[in-house]
């Protein structure tokens, strides 16, 4: 039966579907919006493994359908998340926001099912350009600025990716197939850099906590799921065996990333920025998982990839739910800072429950989905004998529960009552949150639902997340983190401040750059323009009556010399008056010399030219200069004599 169903690319459903959104209004549009993710989900379900949808492009084939368990798993979670998020965004009236969101989801699905590097690059760029509108639609100055910074970082990432693809084509003899790149070369390293910018790996991560908190309420929810997770997907497919000099760089980068996000989240006051830093941290687990796969072999390697994919799957659900709850708080109260919130559990109880489900999920509490996915990656580190990685990841888990599970809910929902009048968000938002919350718990309780669709289910067939040791150990970890929180509660109070991150370098750097452009560079260019204008003005003035102009110039020079040699004299005054009169009347009537005078002048000039041509080559430069000086002096002297006589 499956074979009889004709499927279309889920990316095409979203991308072409998005273009028709403005045609519908009101309830029809809402129904249409929900139809698209459902249609895409059904399509993903019926897509068969294999490679299809090839389109010739120049001398290559663009592959829009490379379907295997890995891409299908991401396809499932992307379409499921899109459905929950569309419910959440259903109340938004502006068609443009829905179009941008669906183009964004569609291009993310395009990357997931792409079989060649060109197709990936195309969808990669569409993803960046579509998602920036989800930031700009908030229409605040801060959002517009953050959007531009977001776009610039992603354009740089896109250029690195394209450069890498071209170099890789040279290295591989023209292949654009998207396979595992298990060797370090200029091409693969550039491709990796392009990918890890989207995965928000420090120090290239600052765009994420910079931009996501400035996006629209619903746009931010979409953004949490797709950009970083497509990056995780391409890393899991392209770099599961990538080492540089035998070091699995992604393993270390990922573990550092997991702790980095946690540390900044502790300092953060803005609720969505706090959660954004936890995207960095959680994606760190996934990047680390890819790295563990590279450093290990056999079943351990496969387990690590399974863990990465499982964690990406669960992360999309709970992180979407976290941003939905935080968005609901901002939407209903208009406040986004922990210092301004408090006691919300009384007025927004359902939001609080949904938030806590997501918070327990991200913290890896038993019976929630983070517990069954994060632990696979940590388990792989354990099997591989990486004690330091194991401790770093467990430490990041402590920090995650501290910020997301304790600090944020304590200061937003409980703690000191800020007396905010609000209520739970509209029904559509609650439905979106409910779908995500239901799946968070469902997967936590029935992990096999997820384990069976992972790329290598046989590798984790023996893995039991609910083994007594792991179960009790996790409870100990979380409860004693709570104990630590109780002790430190005063110290961890949120503060009205921002924390500088690596975006400082380009935000302050750009100010320095603009100063350089505004001052030295602009002045330099202005000087040349001014000088050219002066020459031009003079030439225009001169050309009106060259003979008179030459006379005026010569007389001005002569008068200056006269003044210097004789001091002020009556003759000079008269001559000056005459000169001023000439200047005022300039250009006046062009002087017409009589024909004889002209012919005499011309023949003199020609004779002088002969002299120059025949005599000069035999003279030294010094002599020529001397001759010239003598001629000028003679002329000036004669003119001065004349001036004195007229006086």
């Amino acid at each position: 039966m499956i074979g009889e169903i004709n499927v279309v690319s889920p990316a095409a459903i979203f991308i072409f579907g998005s273009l028709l959104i403005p045609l519908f209004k009101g309830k029809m549009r809402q129904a249409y919006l929900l139809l698209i993710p459902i249609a895409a989900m059904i399509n993903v379900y019926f897509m068969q493994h294999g490679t299809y949808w090839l389109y010739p492009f120049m001398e290559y084939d663009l592959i829009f359908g490379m379907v295997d368990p890995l891409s299908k798993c991401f396809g499932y979670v992307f379409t499921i998340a899109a459905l929950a998020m569309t419910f959440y965004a259903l109340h938004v009236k502006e068609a443009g926001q829905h179009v941008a969101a669906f183009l964004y989801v569609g291009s993310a699905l395009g990357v997931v099912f792409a079989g060649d590097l060109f197709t990936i690059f195309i969808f990669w760029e569409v993803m960046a350009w579509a998602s920036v509108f989800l930031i700009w639609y908030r229409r605040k100055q801060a959002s517009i600025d953050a959007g531009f910074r977001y776009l610039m970082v992603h354009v740089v990432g896109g250029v690195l990716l394209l450069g890498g693809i071209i170099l890789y084509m040279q290295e591989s003899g023209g292949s654009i197939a998207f396979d595992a790149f298990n060797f370090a070369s200029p091409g693969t390293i550039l491709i990796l850099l392009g990918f890890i910018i989207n995965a928000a790996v420090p120090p290239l991560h600052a765009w994420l906590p910079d931009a996501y908190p400035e996006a629209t309420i619903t746009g931010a929810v979409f953004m949490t799921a797709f950009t970083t997770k497509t990056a995780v997907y391409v890393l899991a497919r392209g770099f599961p065996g990538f080492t540089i000099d035998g070091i699995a760089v992604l393993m270390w980068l990922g573990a550092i990333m997991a702790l980095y996000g946690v540390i900044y989240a502790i300092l953060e006051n803005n609720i969505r920025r706090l959660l954004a830093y936890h995207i960095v941290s959680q994606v760190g687990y996934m990047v680390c998982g890819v790295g563990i796969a590279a450093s290990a072999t056999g079943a351990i390697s496969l387990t690590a990839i399974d863990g990465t994919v499982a964690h990406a799957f669960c992360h999309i659900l709970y992180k979407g739910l976290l941003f939905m709850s935080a968005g609901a708080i901002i939407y209903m109260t208009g406040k986004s800072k922990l210092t301004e919130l408090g006691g919300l559990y009384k007025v927004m109880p359902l939001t609080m429950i949904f938030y806590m489900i997501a918070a327990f999920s991200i913290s890896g509490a038993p019976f929630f989905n983070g517990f069954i996915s994060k632990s696979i990656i940590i388990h792989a580190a354990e099997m591989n004998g990486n004690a330091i990685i194991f401790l770093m990841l467990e430490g990041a888990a402590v920090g995650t529960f501290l910020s997301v599970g304790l600090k944020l809910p304590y200061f937003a929902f409980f703690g000191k009552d800020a007396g905010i009048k609000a209520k739970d968000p509209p029904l559509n938002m609650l439905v979106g949150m409910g779908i995500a919350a239901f799946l968070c718990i469902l997967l936590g309780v029935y992990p096999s639902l997820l384990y069976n669709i992972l790329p290598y289910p046989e590798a984790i067939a023996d893995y039991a997340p609910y083994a007594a040791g792991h179960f009790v150990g996790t409870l100990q970890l979380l409860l004693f983190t709570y104990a630590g929180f109780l002790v430190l509660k005063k110290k961890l109070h949120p503060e009205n401040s921002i924390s500088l991150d690596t975006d400082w370098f380009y935000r302050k750097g750009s100010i320095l750059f603009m100063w350089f452009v505004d001052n030295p560079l602009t002045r330099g260019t202005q000087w040349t323009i001014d000088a050219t204008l002066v020459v031009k003005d003079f030439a225009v003035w001169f050309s009106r009556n060259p003979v008179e102009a030459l006379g005026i110039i010569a007389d001005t020079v002569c008068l200056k010399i006269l003044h210097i040699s004789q001091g002020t004299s009556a003759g000079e005054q008269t001559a000056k008056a005459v000169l001023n009169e000439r200047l005022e009347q300039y250009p006046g009537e062009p002087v017409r010399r009589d024909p004889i005078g002209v012919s005499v002048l011309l023949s003199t000039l020609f004779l002088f030219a002969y002299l120059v041509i025949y005599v000069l080559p035999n003279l030294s430069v010094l002599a020529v200069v001397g001759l010239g000086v003598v001629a000028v002096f003679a002329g000036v002297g004669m003119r001065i004599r004349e001036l004195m006589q007229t006086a």
Partner: protein
Amino acid sequence: MWFLEKWLENPKIVKKLNYVLYASFVIVCILGVAVHFAEPEAAVEHEEAAEHEEDAFAFEQIPIFSAIFGFVICALLGLGAKAYGHNVVMKREDYYDR
């Protein structure tokens, strides 16, 4: 959520909830020890599974390792991050606007 409001606003019940919390701290530690000493028995029954279950690192042999680790790391992260923030990266909110 009327019951939650009723509970959290009532100091007596909050006190009781705190006792439950402290009790749970003790219970998970006891459970940890119990699991630690119960595991060898399980290992005899399912040898293959036990080999899989065996903790990889020496520090995991401590029965309440996770509890100690959680508490210490929580304190280190909390204090360390705040110290880092106050001394290095934390700035006024209008830092970039000035």
